[in-house]
């Protein structure tokens, strides 16, 4: 071992960290022959003793009791909240997500309830008639099927407001009534009459009758 090797390992030797006992013995042997390294060993030994004395002096140092009290209080509070009825099942993140989900579900449910509440069977308000597979499946007899097919194949105009309904409230509980009108009624709404029209001929129309029994819209059936 030379001085450079000694220097690189002296602090580990004096602090008992040298893993290799043979190397430790070599270092001590070297210090016995080299004045400079002997001095280095001496000052490192004194430094280690001072550090150990300082560590011993600090060994009794502890955080004050008030820190433990504050922490125990925080721990109890945390445990109490964690064991609450809602938080017992999952963490905060889960409940945040769930509350967003519940809010969304409530909005969707309210929308569906409003729409269904306003909708009556056979009241396709302001909608063009579309084939309904559910209705087709529900009809059992051939007569009912034929009526349904005819109904779905009918062409209609759009609903024409009659100017008696200013807001959606007047359409609450509205019903649609099919009526027969003189063909001339088409002209009153600016609609054309077929060339093969015969005087006294009638046309079918569907009239939306509002809550007060007042007709609010009309559409003509082809």
């Amino acid at each position, binding site marked *: 071992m*030379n*001085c450079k090797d000694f220097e*690189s390992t002296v*602090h*580990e030797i004096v*602090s008992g*960290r040298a893993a290799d006992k043979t190397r430790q013995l070599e270092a001590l042997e*070297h210090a016995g*022959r*080299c*004045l*400079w*390294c002997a*001095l280095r060993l001496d*000052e*490192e030994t004194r*430094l*280690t003793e*001072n*550090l150990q*004395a*300082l*560590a011993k*002096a*600090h*060994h*009794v*140092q*502890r*955080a*004050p009791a008030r*820190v*433990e009290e*504050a*922490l*125990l209080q*925080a*721990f*109890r509070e*945390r*445990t109490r909240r*964690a*064991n609450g009825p809602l938080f017992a099942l999952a963490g905060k993140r889960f409940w945040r997500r769930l509350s967003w989900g519940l809010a969304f579900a409530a909005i969707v449910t309210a929308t569906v309830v409003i729409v269904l509440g306003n909708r009556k069977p056979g009241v396709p308000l302001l909608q063009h008639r579309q084939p309904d597979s559910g209705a087709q499946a529900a009809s059992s007899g051939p007569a009912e099927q034929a009526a349904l097919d005819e109904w779905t194949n009918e062409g209609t105009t759009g609903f024409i407001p009659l100017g008696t309904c200013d807001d959606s409230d007047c359409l609450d509980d509205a019903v649609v009534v099919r009526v027969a009108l003189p063909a001339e009624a088409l002209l009153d709404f600016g609609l054309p009459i077929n060339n093969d029209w015969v005087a006294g001929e009638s046309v079918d129309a569907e009239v939306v009758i509002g809550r007060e029994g007042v007709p609010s819209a009309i559409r003509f059936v082809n």
Partner: protein
Amino acid sequence: MAELIELRDEQLLKMMRDGDEDAFTALYRRRQGGIYRFVLEMSGSAALAEDVTQEVFMALIRESRGYDPTRGSLAAYLLGMARHHAVRLLKRDRTYVPMEEGGRDGEKSLPFSPEDPQWAMSRRQSIEAVQQAILSLPEHYREAVVLCDLNEMSYEDTASVLGCSVGTVRSRLHRGRALLLQKLAGGKKAEASRKAIDPSGCLA
């Protein structure tokens, strides 16, 4: 409570997660001293050591699942947190109160009570000089000296706390001790005289 003392840190942590207050208390009492002393020795401030100790365990209460056993011991994890908090607070405050200027509760006095007052005085001065020399070291050397020499941590645990390699810890400790010796011997003058007796080319 007595049987909890037998349990490992990781077992206590698991029980603590399940709301066991005694397990938390046992873990706190086992580890708080090391954390408190580390910050005290790093900063010289008892107030800072107290604050950091509290913050570390508060963080453990809030996020006890943040500890990953594959990355080191719980003690090293807690000291790493303490180091992080201490560095943050020191940077915020810029200055800290050295021990001889007094911390809280009159903790400036080192607990010596030997029978010979003269010996005690000399010993106390010597240790306080070491303490001041440590406080004047650059931070990364100070950390190595405090963890390895004062807290007798292994190189591996120290490397885990500091987030560096074992080789880096060794070299920082070596350099830190060399700087300490310089400071204790009176700085450059002592270093010069030490070099004067250096038998150049000694390859004995």
